[in-house]
């Protein structure tokens, strides 16, 4: 029974496919998977938007949406109808072809990442040998789409927002990749299913998740910082800083195209949280050995939604950074630390079992963190800036 519940979606898919002739079965299985992913994540998107608006409202001492339906839970539907029926305005001087293509490329590239994410035991669309590389290749293509959106609008705020977004995404992609490379080094595989199954083991009741190792903990923190920047979320939301550049690269988008950008942003958040879950938090494996009877997909999606809650919490808590602080933080703090973390992961691999590697690895990371943190705190990169003309 437990086994059946765990594999319920796999069995359901097999049962549906069973009605078709043998030649079509494999293709039909993939089509079913794609359809499920394309329906599931927009539904989660509606849920996350509601959570974000309600949660942020609570954090800011206000109610949040409370008019549509009981407690305002139907607000996403109202939002959807609104954005679908609004007039689609394209600026007269805009480059219409590029302006039209940009939101489509954003959404498609964001959805592609789900193809390799294992969402439960045996629940992965394509079990690719180079899964992680595929994921990052798809993630890298969104940068060009953001630029397309900003440039084609022929609006200085859009262009500024796009340039900010591209510069920020490129800068934070380096630590993002390097912190993931540590996981690849330890697992010895780029396949995400292998990375999960390497973590799906227990000592006593505690799991072998990578976050519970010194390099994994440091790597996870850097991964989380980089993902926040990569998805343009607060405190790294300079590309769409409302008080400075209207709405950044999607200033000139309205109606359905704006909704596509909004969807793309949240889908990217889901997929990158899913990747973080897979790399560091054990993917679909249970947090304690006595909880393994709960279906694997429940664990994956609860970890995913927990990450989304952290994103919302960060947005409600932290103020926006300045552009120079953002760049200095990426290149002078996160990048060197992730390089050191790579070295520590190699040490962890070669020191073998035993308590020594815990002490050595933790000590190196801690010393590096404290030393570099002090250095940065002393330098004036992060302090208040004097303005030559404003004063």
């Amino acid at each position, binding site marked *: 029974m437990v086994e059946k519940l765990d594999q319920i979606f796999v069995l359901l898919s097999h049962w549906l496919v069973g009605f078709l002739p043998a030649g079509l079965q494999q293709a039909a299985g993939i089509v079913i998977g794609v359809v499920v992913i394309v329906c599931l994540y927009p539904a989660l998107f509606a849920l996350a938007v509601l959570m974000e608006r309600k949660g942020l409202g609570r954090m800011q001492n206000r109610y949040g949406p409370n008019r549509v339906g009981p407690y305002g839970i139907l607000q996403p539907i109202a939002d959807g109808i609104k954005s679908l029926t609004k007039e689609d305005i394209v600026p007269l001087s805009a480059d219409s072809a*590029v302006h039209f293509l940009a939101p489509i490329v954003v959404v498609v590239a964001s959805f592609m990442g789900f193809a390799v994410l294992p969402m439960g035991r045996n629940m992965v669309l394509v079990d690719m040998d*180079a899964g992680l590389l595929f994921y990052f290749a*798809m993630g890298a*293509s969104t940068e*060009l789409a953001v630029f397309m959106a900003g440039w084609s609008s022929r609006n200085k705020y859009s262009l500024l927002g796009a340039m900010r977004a*591209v510069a920020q995404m490129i800068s934070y992609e380096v630590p993002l990749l390097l912190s993931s490379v540590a996981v690849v080094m330890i697992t010895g595989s780029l396949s995400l299913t292998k990375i999960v199954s390497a973590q799906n083991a227990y000592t006593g009741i505690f799991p072998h998740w990578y976050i519970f190792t010194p390099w994994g903990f440091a790597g996870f923190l850097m991964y989380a910082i980089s993902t926040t920047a990569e998805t343009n979320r607060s405190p790294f939301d300079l590309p769409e800083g409302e008080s400075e550049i209207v709405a950044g690269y999607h200033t000139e988008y309205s109606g359905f195209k704006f909704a596509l950008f909004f969807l793309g942003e949240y889908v990217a958040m889901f997929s990158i949280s899913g990747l973080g879950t897979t790399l560091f938090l054990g993917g679909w494996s249970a947090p304690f050995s006595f909880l393994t009877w709960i279906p694997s997909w429940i664990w994956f999606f609860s970890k995913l939604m927990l990450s989304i809650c952290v994103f919302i919490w960060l947005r409600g808590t932290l103020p926006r950074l300045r552009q120079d602080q953002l760049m200095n933080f990426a290149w002078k703090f996160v990048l060197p630390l992730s390089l050191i973390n790579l070295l520590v992961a190699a040490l962890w691999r070669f020191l073998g079992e035993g308590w020594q590697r815990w002490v050595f690895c933790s000590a190196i990371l801690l010393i590096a963190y404290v030393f570099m943190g002090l250095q940065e705190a002393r330098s004036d990169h992060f302090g208040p800036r004097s303005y030559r003309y404003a004063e």
Partner: protein
Amino acid sequence: MSFVFYILAAITLAGGLAAVLLKNMVHCALAVSIAFAGLAFLFLGLDAQFAGFAQILVYVGAVAILVVFAILLTRSSDTPKDGGVFSRTWLAGLVVAAAVFAVIGWAVLSSVGGLPHEAAVPTVTVLQIGQALMGPYVLPLEIVALLLTVATIGAVIVAIHEKEDAK
């Protein structure tokens, strides 16, 4: 020759052609990134997964962005008003390119008989590529690492804005 190959080849060549012919520089950069992506899918069609994804990661994710930044920094995104986008000696260039294509095409077509027809699909795992990189190809790998470091520093030094009054 499969249907997919023809479509991918057409997309790639159209992207390349558009990159060379279009007037607006940003359109050229976007067209060339279509060509890069098409090539990546051609690599996938040749069962070279790793090379295909690396192609997308490096070319679409990095080189195309670099080109776009360079276009905006040199203010060449607007169509030039005088003299068009082609060089004065464009005819000579076209003739040279056509001649090169004629020679290569003739060489390929005249050796069609000797080319292998079908080969077994090679099963190359990422593990094998990694072991090859760390085994027989470790020296080139290290040289490439050095080259990339030098190129990064060199590019920054070349492009850095020198202050007019050095302090």
